[in-house]
């Protein structure tokens, strides 16, 4: 019973924020001469396959949403974990790219190896590369106190340029004049749930259009690992302690520096895994589409909307994946630019950050919180209590 109430209570704020965003977004659409109802009908159809008017196939829409949300879960975790340690990992994108590059390189180099050997190799390779990419920021933060926001932004750019170098004229380029790599070996690919067969008809469409792949399960396992790590392990305990109070952590004998580095390494591994899964599960080669990839940035919003919890991240990924998939259906069905999706995402974040709902509730006497409850706290602030505080000088580091 209390669990139900806790879940409902935990959902109320994010859900309310989503409603708030849709109301304001609807006003923007209406104010610029569009029809918000048909816009949202398009979004819902595109995201969840519900209420489609133009003959969209629900199974296909859901499949697309799942493909979009898969990397968001893993990168969302990669942002949420450092949040817990008081670190702002703005570099999930760069770490994802590092993972995808490593995965591709290994998948090409050892393309003849069979799946049981090669698949773990490419996934692990991606994780290691992501970990190293994030580890640079972790080490610089822990040793010289360089602000992780700056260093991770720099690492993002470096990854972007490295990617261009590799596939345009560099060692991974497919052929002169292309901006893509060779495909990875068949052994490096993650299986899709349905056979990639154009002649098999499932739900009225060829089975190959459903691109949902086993990476989804890896992502969900990653979220579960994140939850377990955070709440059930001594390391997670120490990460949270460092995030909430470095002094208390030091008092407890936790090495703040080591924890910062380890946290960033793990976060980077999650991001790198996301990149490897995208290559192994969806693309099978590194292409110019990664130039414009924004997964690692969307992940920041996902982590915040998910309030830094595993379940929240999965749900937030679902929402963002659905918005992503729904945007283009909205555009073709309702004639509303899919950029509205960005506006909605931003409004959701505003609402969560500012706790507008809390403010509104305060204004309505009947709903005012009963005395005795602790004062409301914005969730992100709670995640980052001592976020900016660099480790104090003169302290012992071990």
């Amino acid at each position: 019973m209390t669990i139900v109430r806790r879940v409902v209570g935990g959902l109320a704020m994010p859900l309310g924020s989503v409603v708030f965003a849709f109301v304001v977004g609807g006003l923007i659409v209406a104010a610029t001469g569009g029809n918000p109802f048909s816009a949202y009908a398009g979004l819902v159809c595109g995201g969840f396959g519900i209420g489609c008017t133009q003959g969209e196939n629900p199974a296909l829409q859901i499949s697309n949403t799942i493909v979009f949300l898969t990397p968001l879960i893993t990168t969302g975790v990669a942002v949420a974990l450092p949040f817990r340690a008081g670190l702002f990992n703005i570099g999930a994108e760069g770490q994802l790219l590092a993972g995808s590059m490593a995965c591709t390189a290994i998948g090409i180099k050892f393309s003849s190896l069979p799946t049981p050997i090669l698949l773990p190799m490419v996934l692990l390779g991606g994780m290691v590369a992501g970990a190293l990419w994030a580890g640079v920021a972790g080490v610089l933060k822990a040793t010289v106190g360089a602000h992780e926001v700056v260093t991770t932004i720099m690492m993002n750019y470096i990854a972007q340029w490295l990617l261009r170098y590799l596939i345009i004229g560099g060692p991974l380029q497919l052929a002169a004049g292309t901006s893509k790599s060779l495909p990875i070996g068949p052994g490096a690919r993650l299986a899709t749930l349905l056979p990639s067969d154009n002649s098999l008809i499932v739900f009225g469409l060829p089975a190959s259009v459903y691109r949902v792949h086993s990476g989804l399960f890896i992502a969900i396992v990653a979220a579960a690992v994140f939850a377990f790590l955070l709440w059930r392990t001594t390391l997670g305990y120490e990460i949270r302690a460092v995030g909430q109070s470095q002094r208390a952590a030091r008092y407890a004998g936790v090495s703040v520096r080591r924890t910062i580095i380890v946290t960033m390494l793990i976060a980077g591994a999650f991001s790198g895994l996301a990149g490897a899964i995208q290559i192994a599960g969806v693309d099978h080669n590194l292409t110019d589409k990664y130039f414009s990839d924004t997964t690692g940035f969307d992940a920041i919003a996902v982590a915040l909307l998910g309030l830094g919890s595993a379940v929240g991240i999965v749900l937030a990924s679902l929402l963002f994946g659905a918005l992503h998939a729904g945007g283009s259906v909205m555009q073709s069905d309702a004639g509303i630019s899919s950029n509205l999706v960005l506006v909605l995402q931003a409004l959701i974040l505003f609402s969560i950050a500012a706790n507008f709902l809390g403010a509104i509730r305060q204004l309505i006497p009947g709903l005012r919180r009963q005395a005795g409850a602790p004062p409301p706290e914005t969730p992100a602030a709670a995640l980052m209590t001592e976020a900016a505080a660099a480790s104090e000088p003169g302290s012992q580091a071990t």
Partner: protein
Amino acid sequence: MSTTVASNALEMRGITKAFPGVVANNQVDFTVRAGEIHALVGENGAGKTTLMNVLYGLVHQDSGEILIDGKSVRISGPRDAIARGIGMVHQHFMLIPVFTVGENVMLGREPVTGPGFYDRAQARKEIAALTRKYGLSLDADARMGDLPVGLQQRAEIVKVLYRGANILILDEPTGVLTPQESKELFGVLRDLVKTGKTIIFISHKLREVLEISDRITVMRRGKVVGHLTTRDTNQEEIATMMVGREVLLRVDKKPAKAGAVAFKVEDLTANSDRGVPALKGVSFELRQGEILGIAGVEGNGQSELMEVLAGTRRATGGRVLLGDKDVTGFDARTERDAGIAFIPEDRRGTGLVLSFSVAENSILGREKAPTFSWHELVLRLIAIREWARKLVKEFDIRTPSIDTAVRNLSGGNQQKVIVAREMGSQPRVLLAAQPTRGVDIGAIEFIHQRIVAERDHGAAVLLVSAELDEIRSLSDRIAVIYEGRIVSIEPPETPEERLGLLMTGGGSATLPA
């Protein structure tokens, strides 16, 4: 209502202020006469600070009226308060460490030249004039963060005077001062009263209150419980009013049965956070079953000493022996595993992770112990919860559940969580720094009893406290620390005057045996 007496500098009538979950001020009436030093006393959480924040415009009363010089006023912010001649010296100084004294004092009423340039020269002149007038010396160009606490407080007072305050509120002003500095402060206050200022002196140190004030208002749980005239009352009467019952000011304890040397510190040196030497060769021995109190004015190295012994600060020289084992270079975890428990002075920032639950805080620093984790990796949640429940019961921690975040507990119960955790593991050595600071009297008694019980179980206890009364009533021996050195080791019955002298570098030392 009655007509206002003209000689009242300040009158607060029926002030009520509620925060979520607590009524901080409940129909408080508070009257201060012009030219008097009026003490406002009460336990922590009695509502003194809230009342003064209302007066200073930092929070707004839900109901009630404020009259200054007989006129009803509305104070909507500090600016209003300043304009009406109210100045406040906060318990936590409102000073900016990276600014100079001049900038700190001038802030809000800065002298300017030209189109708005800050006029440093004029600031210097203003401060010189003020310090001359009130006989307080201060260097306007010194960086605030570099000054000792006494001078920082002086800067706070100058800051208030610069704003033309007639009513000065001093919130727990002596908490961080040496007895000498306190004496100087009292002198300053008396001089200020002579120049026509009115002073509200907030304290829970009853001896000081009796020494400095003319009249006393006592608060308890958000209400005023008594108006007293200082010369007609005594410490016991005020204390009873404050807590609502007779208080045992003495700790009931048997004589110590000191055993073997448990802990030996030899010529220990260490630096402060700012990198300057804070410990300059500290040596002492601590025996099983005794309490060694460290008396000293804050900032003489006791914090650093405790941190070095607990492993959270690196020693620059010397040795620490636990039994025969050299534990000097140990980090906090190894020290703790070796049987050294530590109650840190900063409860909220260091001893607890406020957002963690009671259960989570109950294993802080011991999360990797075999009892609480599997191979130091996975937490044993069931064992942790059992442990937390046991501590809550045994140490009478008042909490809705062990899953409640400690942020939501009262200060006393927060401290009990720390005490329970540190004592619950039966340590060989207990380091207790300011174990009762900011804790209500009921909890103080309880914590004192537990410390003595720990001693009686054979633990060696090292106690640091800013409260000389606490040191004297708990300790079996008293080490006096001054400027990073133990200057003397004294028996517990040593008169307070002598300890005070030693703490400030005077007196002839009784060298440690």
